[in-house]
């Protein structure tokens, strides 16, 4: 693929994995209102995946489900199952904060169809972020919330940094020059990190950010290396499809 198409594939794969993992929460959240909220968000994310794959080809299911694991470009954070609700909330906050920054940098893309997807997604992302931030700030006012959630930030932030990495063959520098993205991923990552810091500062907490000499060394998912969680996630996604590749469902 190369260039912007590789970038779009990575973003689409992030959305596919996040959407799949969030869908798990239907009927098993802390209360029904929360089940409804998380599954609305899941539908939005899967809808973004569909729109992004649609920029790359007509057969969306072949792109979403027809590749071998090493051909996916998802960030490892999105592949985590997060079957504990606290884990899901922390990832939701980190991811949707990141998405708000990433989509904003694509909203005026010179790839017009991508810009249109980004503008639609941005409006939804803001409501996702309100949901995550609202719950987080209320829970961080309690001792139980702080003890459950704060350690998870240190666990997840190193993985979350990968959300601002791009696949090695997409020539990231050229994307800014070509007007595909408004500013470098490193700038976007700095804005995201500051937003996360601000929210956690309200709880008197400073997350530990990884210091990579070479940030790209953390970008494992973008190179095609899959996390240990991906196999189960992917097996589930394709279980029925794999029964008979000629069948139409």
């Amino acid at each position, binding site marked *: 693929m190369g260039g912007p198409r590789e970038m779009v594939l990575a973003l689409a794969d992030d959305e596919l994995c996040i959407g799949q993992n969030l*869908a798990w929460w239907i*009927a098993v959240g*802390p209360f029904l209102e929360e089940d409804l909220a998380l599954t609305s968000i899941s539908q939005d994310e899967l809808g973004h995946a569909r729109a992004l794959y649609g920029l790359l080809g007509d057969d969306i299911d072949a792109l979403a489900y027809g590749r071998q694991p090493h051909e996916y470009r998802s960030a490892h954070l999105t592949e985590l199952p997060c079957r504990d609700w606290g884990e899901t909330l922390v990832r939701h906050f980190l991811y949707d904060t990141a998405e708000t920054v990433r989509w904003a940098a694509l909203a005026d893309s010179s790839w017009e169809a991508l810009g249109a997807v980004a503008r639609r997604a941005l409006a939804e992302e803001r409501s996702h972020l309100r949901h995550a931030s609202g719950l987080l700030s209320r829970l961080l*006012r309690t001792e139980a919330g702080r003890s459950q959630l704060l350690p998870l930030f240190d666990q997840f932030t190193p993985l979350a940094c990968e959300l601002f990495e791009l696949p090695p063959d997409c020539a990231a520098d050229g994307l800014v020059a070509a007007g595909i993205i408004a500013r470098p991923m490193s700038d976007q990552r700095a804005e995201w990190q500051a937003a996360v810091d601000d929210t956690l500062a309200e709880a008197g907490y400073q997350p530990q950010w990884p210091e990579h000499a070479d940030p790209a060394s953390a970008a494992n998912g973008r190179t095609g290396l899959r996390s240990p969680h991906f196999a189960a996630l992917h097996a589930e996604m394709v279980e029925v499809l794999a029964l008979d590749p*000629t069948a139409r469902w």
Partner: protein
Amino acid sequence: MRSWDSMDDFEAFLDGGGLVEPDDDMPDAYREAVFRFIELHANSEYMGGLTERDWIAKAPGLTNKLTALAKTQDEIGHAHLLYMVAADMGVKTRDEMTADLLAGRTTFHNVFHYRAYSWGDQIAIAYLVDAAALASQQAVFKNCSYGPYKRILRRIIAEEGFHMRNGEELLLKMAKGTAQQHEMMQEGLDRWWWPAVQLFGPDTGPDDVLLRWHIKSERNEVLRDKFVQKMVPQLQAAGFSIPDPDLRQDPETGRWISGEIDWDALKAAIAGRGPDSARRLNDARLAWDGAAWVRSALDEAAAVPA
């Protein structure tokens, strides 16, 4: 607040098409009966969501996944609305209803005591169970005397109609699909036919207060028969068989007559002794208990100003 001098006056009000509202001074027996009915409906929507969720992750393709997710979200949305309407009746709080459900002190519909084993089962649920539930809900809506319930049934029925049509569409795809798809669908129908027929319940007794008080508007056996008359020819036309060896057609009227219905299976399921009852409730309990800290922390946060 309206009140009635006697049960006769109250029943005359109901017979005249009157709608009871939550702040009315309704007879205790009516309040209790309507509450129990709505609580059962709410529990069933919630447990229905748990039944379907096994196949959302595995739904073939993005469109099916989004549709399955939206459908299950509708069911949970119904449960949410119904629990709020039930709680407004002042008999139990939402938390009490959840605790009773998870402890097995209250019940939910028989069909949600079974497990969905395949994508074919998932379709059979949409096609058979949603159709059966829709028929029952339409009959309640038609003449429902409790205002808040009638109003949310309007929305529930509209959404269940989409679910049933989605089930029809997916069933036809399986009918026209590969041999493996056809077989998978037939197996799903074999597993879900009888639970769906049993969902309507045994014949309505001679003096059912739910009929007298205009909660139900139709007898169970009438609704069940309509279901059988509609489903048998549809399934046969799609090339599927009905797992009822004694099913026969009356040569004169052309009506389909089911073989004997196993009401013990219905009773066992509702009593929590169905094939998947234990796992279903255990999943729900684990989820509820696992997130207890979230509920109590949010309560605590609400009590302290920001």
